[in-house]
């Protein structure tokens, strides 16, 4: 089959590789009908994530048709149309039973590595670092799906792929970010980063009852998309904080969502320092947006972090967060909690997630898709790929 393989910094290639096989009794093989490039793929593309190996197949947003099932699979059969969540979860461990699916104990074949890094093993993820198990991803014609009874959601015929593909990651990720804000009537939610996750965080904040959403970015077409969702936009610049404070009558947003993560750009002194340090490997993460979100949030408010962070953060304003009594919520998305209710939202017409797609490419053109997405070339916001 054809698959998009990682070969190093800014080097991804479509290659011929063997088809995946059933390796465990709970596996299924899915023929991919639609896959997508995620912002966190860009962290791999940029070489920010350790534990990658040449030849790794990328991709964790995908859907398709079940073509083979392992001997222990009960909920799926050949021919089922499914969306697959990016977190691989066993459904049986302490964490899965608490619905903390992204923290599953039993899906990482290399648990020791993450145990050394974080104290405890992380769950398996598709197409990501070997610290997260090194599972082959779904930017390919076929993919092996472990624990196929637990993750995949069956999709009825009649809903196009483009409307449901994002149930695999970015819609639930934006939704969880908004849910973590515990939005109350009258609340203002500020969202940093109007990439795909930020766009879904904006939509979700409104779905969850926010009165107002402030969207912060410096890319005009992304701000325009945010406006179309009903957000009030603030162009990120040297006085972003002052603009946010003024827009909230001096009080600050009730919640702040960092949908940017470890690769924040910025023109402020701290952002320049992060960039300089990262360039000589003195730091892995550039948490400029997180610092600003903590600074801008109202006292006693919530900072919700769907953006990915990897390492120890430099100059993290913990004293500010403490002094203001902030709640900070974060982590990978427990996708399985959201797939079914969000599918209902789509079926009911509350949202059409395909609004975020700007580019539709063949899998063969995935390397160009990565470049366009990274460079925000041609007003690129979200790329979907057809194998």
């Amino acid at each position, binding site marked *: 089959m054809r*698959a998009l393989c990682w070969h190093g910094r800014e080097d991804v290639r479509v290659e011929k590789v063997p088809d995946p096989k059933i390796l465990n009794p709970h596996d299924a093989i899915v023929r991919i009908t639609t896959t997508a490039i995620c912002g966190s793929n860009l962290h791999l593309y940029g070489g920010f994530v350790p534990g990658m190996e040449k*030849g790794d197949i990328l991709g964790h947003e995908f859907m398709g048709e079940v073509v083979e099932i392992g001997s222990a699979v009960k909920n799926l059969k050949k021919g089922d149309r499914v969306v697959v969540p990016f977190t691989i979860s066993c459904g*049986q461990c302490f964490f899965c039973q608490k619905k903390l699916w992204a923290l599953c*104990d039993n899906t990482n074949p290399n648990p020791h590595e993450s145990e050394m890094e974080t104290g405890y093993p992380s769950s398996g993820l598709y197409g990501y670092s070997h610290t997260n198990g090194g599972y082959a991803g779904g930017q390919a014609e076929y993919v092996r799906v472990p*624990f196929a009874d637990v993750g995949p959601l069956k999709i009825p015929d009649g809903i196009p792929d483009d409307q449901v593909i994002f149930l695999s990651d970015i819609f639930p990720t934006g939704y969880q970010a908004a849910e973590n804000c515990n939005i109350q009537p009258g609340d203002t939610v500020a969202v940093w980063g109007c990439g795909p996750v930020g766009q879904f965080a904006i939509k979700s904040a409104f779905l969850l009852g926010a009165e107002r959403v402030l969207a912060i970015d410096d890319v005009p077409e992304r701000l325009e998309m945010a406006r179309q969702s009903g957000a009030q936009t603030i162009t990120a610049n040297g006085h972003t904080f002052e603009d946010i404070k003024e827009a909230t009558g001096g009080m600050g947003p009730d919640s702040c969502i960092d949908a940017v993560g470890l690769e924040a750009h910025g023109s402020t002194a701290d952002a320049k320092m992060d960039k300089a340090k990262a360039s000589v490997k003195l730091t892995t993460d550039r948490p400029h947006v997180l610092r600003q979100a903590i600074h801008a949030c109202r006292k006693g408010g919530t900072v919700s972090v769907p953006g990915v962070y990897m390492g120890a953060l430099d100059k993290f304003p913990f004293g500010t967060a403490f002094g203001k009594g902030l709640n900070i919520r974060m982590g990978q998305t427990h996708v399985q909690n959201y797939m079914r209710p969000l599918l209902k939202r789509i079926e009911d017409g509350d949202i059409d997630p395909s609004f975020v797609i700007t580019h539709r490419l063949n899998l063969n053109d995935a390397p160009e898709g990565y470049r366009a997405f990274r460079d925000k070339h041609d007003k690129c916001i979200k790329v979907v790929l057809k194998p």
Partner: protein
Amino acid sequence: MKTRLVERSYSRGRATTVQPSLKSGEGSKIEKAITINRSPEEIYSFWRQLENLPRFMQHVQSVTQTGEGISHWVVKTSHDRTLEWDARLIEDKPGQMLSWQSLEDADVDNAGSVWFTPATGGRGTVVKVSMKYSPPGGKFGTMLSKLFGDSAEKEMSEDLFHLKSLLETGEAPTTEGQPQGSNK
């Protein structure tokens, strides 16, 4: 190399107060505990069927029960060579603990115990393993350092995680045999 017990007071109190060992001062010791969402009885029974051990111990090729309390172990090193020894079960408390030690002339002189204790809050069972083995050296030095040396703790950690996955889900996670692109 010889093994002997340094403590033998299993009859009273909690099982965790004793363990077999190489001669005091000899050998390297590793300990590791993991919580498994299954009952002590179930985990004990799985472990006591020693033929199951290769299902989660990555380097153990086979364990065969050859006599009353005696088993034969074949272990593969990372260089595709095998080490073999016989071991004797020296303590067997159903649902609670097992202890073993290698017999004389073992390729790897080793002794260990595993305890199965109910976890707090009904969260299953704490499985605690304590092992001692002779340090790398002599004619097997190179092989042993590859097998047990710096990576001994990693091996035990991963083996126990795989045991947990196997018992909680019926399979141990793997990517062995999945497709991958060229490594050039």
